[in-house]
């Protein structure tokens, strides 16, 4: 009994007790959670790379023979029968061009048709005339049903490209894309103002100061247009223009520069960036309409506008001057699905690292320079 009383008293005294906690513990928790958030992306990337490597290995080692490719990808062909009328060559060439589209050059001239041989009239028979094989003529793939034309022409294009040792796509491609970065989050940290950090607001010039630790960031969004040039089999280079919007909300101080100071007020920050990306692409898997490529490159972003909206009984707009360009480097693995010879959908997940973020206004990029982007869009193959 006494033992039980002992246990009960100790339990009641200690179980729901509280102890003070150092503020450093929360910082450690936050940093740990941030690391955990990145980890899934690393795992996803590792899984993607592993999957891509498996696909490549499968393609390389299990690639069907050329004969079976011909057998399976050649559209149905018919033999052009010799008729009493001569079929001009120029009538045959347009058929091939029409099926294969502008991207295919006729590899060779069709051989001349043999001269029709005069024969004695043959009595008309009731059964259907037999089509005789005519030597010297190439098999001309002709498809009759409209839905299968694209399928066959697509396979034919690929096969022709391989046979000729030339890339499937040549020339220029135009792309329109959207881009999503990171997550909406709240973070610890203040506005970057190193020259005025810690100084009384009133003594400083016009500007925004002393943001409180909690900042709420909105989802960064990008949109852009690009141009790609396929300069070698499987290789391409691309560039373009990319607009990015980043926003955040925090509490801070505002100094109008003429003696008017607002302390501890809600402030919205809107950042508008224009970037020029430059990437090199290598396509390492081409299977039917699917292409898997890896790409690497970099870019430079210019801060077009950095607006602050200071909330008071009437809102105050403050615009900060432009800063130095923001440089970045990126690396990723993407997929592309060819809808038709001229249009494809692509998805390019990538890692991007931003350099020199300490010189930029506070954003998710300055807090986390290594970021994971997902770019998706349409690519138009202008070809030649």
């Amino acid at each position: 009994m006494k033992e039980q009383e002992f246990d009960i008293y100790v339990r009641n005294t200690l179980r729901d007790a509280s102890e003070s906690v150092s503020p450093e513990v929360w910082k450690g928790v936050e940093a740990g959670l941030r690391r955990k958030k990145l980890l899934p992306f690393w795992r996803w990337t590792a899984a993607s790379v592993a999957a891509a490597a498996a696909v490549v290995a499968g393609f390389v080692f299990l690639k069907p023979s050329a004969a079976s490719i011909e057998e399976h990808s050649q559209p149905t062909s018919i033999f052009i029968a010799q008729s009493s009328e001569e079929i001009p060559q120029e009538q045959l060439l347009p058929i091939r061009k029409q099926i294969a589209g502008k991207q295919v050059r006729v590899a060779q001239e069709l051989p001349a048709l043999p001269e029709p041989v005069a024969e004695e009239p043959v009595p008309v028979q009731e059964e259907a005339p037999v089509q005789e094989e005519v030597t010297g003529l190439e098999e001309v793939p002709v498809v009759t049903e409209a839905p299968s034309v694209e399928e066959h022409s697509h396979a034919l294009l690929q096969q022709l490209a391989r046979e000729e040792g030339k890339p499937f796509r040549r020339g220029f491609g135009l792309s329109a894309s959207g881009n999503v970065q990171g997550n909406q989050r709240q973070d610890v940290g203040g506005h970057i103002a190193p020259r005025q950090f810690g100084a009384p607001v009133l003594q400083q010039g016009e500007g925004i100061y002393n943001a409180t630790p909690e900042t709420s960031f909105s989802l960064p969004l990008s949109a852009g247009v690009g141009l790609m040039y396929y300069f070698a089999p499987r290789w391409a280079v691309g560039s373009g223009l990319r607009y990015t919007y980043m926003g955040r909300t925090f509490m801070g101080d505002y100094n109008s520069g003429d003696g008017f100071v607002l302390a501890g007020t809600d402030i919205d920050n809107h950042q508008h960036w224009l970037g020029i990306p430059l990437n090199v692409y290598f396509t390492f898997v081409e299977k039917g309409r699917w292409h898997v490529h890896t790409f690497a490159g970099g870019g430079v972003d210019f801060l077009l506008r950095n607006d602050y909206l200071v909330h008071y009984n009437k809102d105050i707009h403050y615009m900060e001057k432009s800063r130095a360009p923001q440089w970045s480097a990126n690396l990723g693995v993407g997929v592309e699905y060819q809808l038709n010879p001229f249009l494809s959908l692509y998805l390019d997940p990538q890692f991007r690292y931003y350099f020199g973020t300490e010189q930029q206004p506070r954003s998710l990029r300055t807090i986390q320079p290594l970021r994971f982007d997902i770019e998706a869009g349409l690519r138009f193959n202008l070809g030649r």
Partner: protein
Amino acid sequence: MWTREDNSPGGHAFPQQLLQDCKDGKLKAQRQVYDALSPKMMALCLRYMGNREDAEDVLQEGFITLFTKLDSYQGAGSFEGWARRIFVNTALMHLRRTDALGLSDDITEAHGLFTEEATPVQKMGYRELMQMVAALPPDARTVFNMYVIEGYSHKEIAKELGCTEATSRSKLQRARIRLQEMINETK
């Protein structure tokens, strides 16, 4: 602002929406949960680790695990009770890592706990008791905490610590005796 959804008496209420926000990675919600739980969990960690520095390490790691594994909390039982188990396991992991437990199958009976001369434990306040528990050897302290404070059975303790039930009983008894000795010394 919060509705009382937690049935544990005296426990803090953790609304479903708040927990869902934590699962969604919203830092503000996570901070709220942290602020609500950290003082109690710090006391728990201090009881297991015996010093503040190690206790804060365990507290930090415990919260990271809690928020990371929040999906596994299905609502059965109180959230605070679930959280306690997370922190106990984290503390045990730390103790194993430092090889502080060193439990041997010593089943020598311990005697002489509640004698006539024993000072009633009820004379001890929280701070004194906490210091005494922290002063126990790590193996005895761990078993005492798990059995007396957390309510684990000897079978569960043996499974967690990789020892026999007899060893668990023996360590518990030794902890009680040592505590009583320390209480007597304060007379």
